[in-house]
Structure formats: C-alpha cells, structure tokens
C-alpha cells in the first residue's frame, strides 16, 4: 500500500512536470490564423446591445477541429480585447444551436460547413462574425492562402446585414468583396 502511494505521488510529480513543459507546437499557418482572429476581436465593432455588461467577454468560438485551438490554448494567448476579457471556446457540435449565437466570432472549420448553413439567419440576428476558410461562401470573412501567406476576404454586405462595423485596420489589409 505504501509502495502504491509512492508510485502515485511520483506519477503526480511527473504529471505536474508535463503540465509545465512547452506548449504543443502548431504549424505557422494555424498560429497566423489565430493572430488574425484575435485582431478581428480588436477591430470589429458590435452593436451596443450585444454586450449587457462592461466585463462581458468577447468570445471567439470554433466549430470543428483545428490546430488554431492549440494556439489559443497556449500560455501566449491574449486575455483582453477592446477593454473586455477575451476568451476562446471550442464548441460542441451537439450544442451549436444554443451556443453559437452567444459568440461574437465563430470560426467554422471546413468539416462543419454543413452545420453552419442552417444557422446563418440566427447568427446574423445575433451579430456573430462568421469566419470560414476559402472553400466556403457562407462566412462574412474567409481565410485564404495567397502567395504563401494568409489573407482574408471580407463580404461587406454580409457584415452590414449582421450589424457589424469593420475597423479600417481590417479593411485596409483585407480583400473586399462587395
């Protein structure tokens, strides 16, 4: 019994060491996309009614599996945007209908595009900035890779319909689709 206790404590110790070990590595593309998503949180204006309290966080949510989550889950991730707490959450596809409208930014991985389509009207009413990769026309913003670099395309009409104001810092670096 004493040996078991010792083994358990050793296991806990090495578990703690692993927790302190370096974060998982991510490919640079996912890291860049995470940075760009964070900048969306910095430079998009939501209608005033979106936030009911001064400390209500800006939530970036992700539907589907992507290494972008690893970057947001690392110790380097930011905790604040526009003076509000900044949070990242991986959504469960089973709860998407209830949870997605509570997000300010929803990044949808390509395996979940079919889940996104029927939600679009509700997401628009909830002023959610929808972000997809380039092989979808359903997001307000789509990522694409151009000349080996990450870019993003903005559908301005879709942004206006969702009541979103996109800052000039985004517009000047975006590919605009009217």
């Amino acid at each position, binding site marked *: 019994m004493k040996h078991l206790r010792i083994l358990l*404590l050793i296991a806990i110790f090495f*578990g*703690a060491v692993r927790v302190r070990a370096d974060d998982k590595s991510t490919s640079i593309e996912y*890291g860049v996309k995470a*940075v760009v998503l964070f900048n969306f949180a910095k430079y998009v204006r939501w209608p005033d009614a979106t936030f009911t309290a001064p400390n209500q966080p800006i939530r970036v949510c992700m539907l589907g599996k992507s290494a972008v989550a690893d970057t947001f889950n690392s110790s*380097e991730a930011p905790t604040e945007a526009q003076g509000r707490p900044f949070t990242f959450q991986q959504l469960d596809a089973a709860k998407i209908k209830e949870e997605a409208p509570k997000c300010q930014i929803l990044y949808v991985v390509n395996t979940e595009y079919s889940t996104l389509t029927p939600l679009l009207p509700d997401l628009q009413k909830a002023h959610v900035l929808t972000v997809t990769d380039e092989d979808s026309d359903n997001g307000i913003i789509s990522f694409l*890779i151009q000349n080996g670099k990450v*870019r993003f395309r903005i559908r301005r009409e879709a942004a206006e319909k969702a009541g979103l104001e996109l800052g000039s810092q985004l517009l000047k670096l975006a590919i605009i689709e009217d």
Partner: protein
Amino acid sequence: MAPSPQEARHGGHRACTRIGVLIVWSLALLAVLGGYVTTVTAEGRSPNGSGIFSLSLAEALDIRVDASPLRDLSEDGIYLIDRHELIQLRSQPQAWQSFFSLGRETLSDVPLLVDGEYFGNFSQPRDVAALTRDLRSRLVRIELFVGDRARWWSKGEYDFVINVITKATPERSDDPGTIKEERRS
C-alpha cells in the same frame, strides 16, 4: 549503554522509514509546486498575448506559411534570413530548433559564429540548444556565408559558415570584395 542488535535494527528501520517519508513528501511538494507554478504562469499572462500574438496584423499577414527556413545553399553568396522569417523563427521555437538541427545534419562540421566571433562547430554543437534559446530574443539576422565568402570568414577552412547577428556590427574593412546581399525568396 549500547543498543542491542534488535534495537539497532529497529532504529535503522525507523531511519529508513523517515527518509522514505521525506522523499515521498518532497515529491508531493514538488507536484503541488508544479501545479502552482503552472497556475501562476497562466494567471500572469499578458492581456495582449505574447509570442506570436505580439505580432501586429500586418506582420502576421506577411509571414510565409509555406516556407522552410533552410534554403538550397548551393550558390556562392550570403543568404540573409529576412525579418519576417526571423519573426517566424522567434514565434516558433520548434522551427528555430529545427533550423539548427537540420543545419547540423546537412551542414556537418559547419562553424557557427555569433556577431562574427567563432562560437562552435555544428559537428560538435557546444551548447547549441542553449545558444538558440538565448539568441532567440536577441536575434537581428542570420547570415549564411557560402563558397568564397565562407572561406574568407573561416580563413579557407570551410565552404559554409553561419553567422548569427545579435547586434549591429560595423562593416568589415578588410573584406576582400563587395559583399552583395542576396535575398532568396
């Protein structure tokens, strides 16, 4: 009065037990501290993020996501790792380590200079891992000297030389010719 053999054995057994308990509690304390350090680290995060999140939007969009930091080094010249790839290397510790690891494998026996001073040789990487950890925050540029320029730097000994610049260095007045900076895309 000297202890009996039985008492001596019992005393020795108690000492071993105490040492064992001490080891067990030390491990437990370390485990707790490990969790505490993790918690403190998480709570001490910068609100604006660090690492790759310290990049501006323009900088992030300027990073090549398809590039390898190592290039074909078959041509004579100086190959600069440009600023954006430095940002990439800075924000991706594993890419930085891979860069030097791969260098060590494919460029065996290549000398490594830091600010023009000989640091070590890749075939005997004296603290290369520690060096890369230290250099990451101070890195200005990496120069890869190939061919004649490498032979000049290494006094004829090597065809490749890697020079890591951490501070502005004056131009060498005894350079045998014009050093033409060649950027490789």
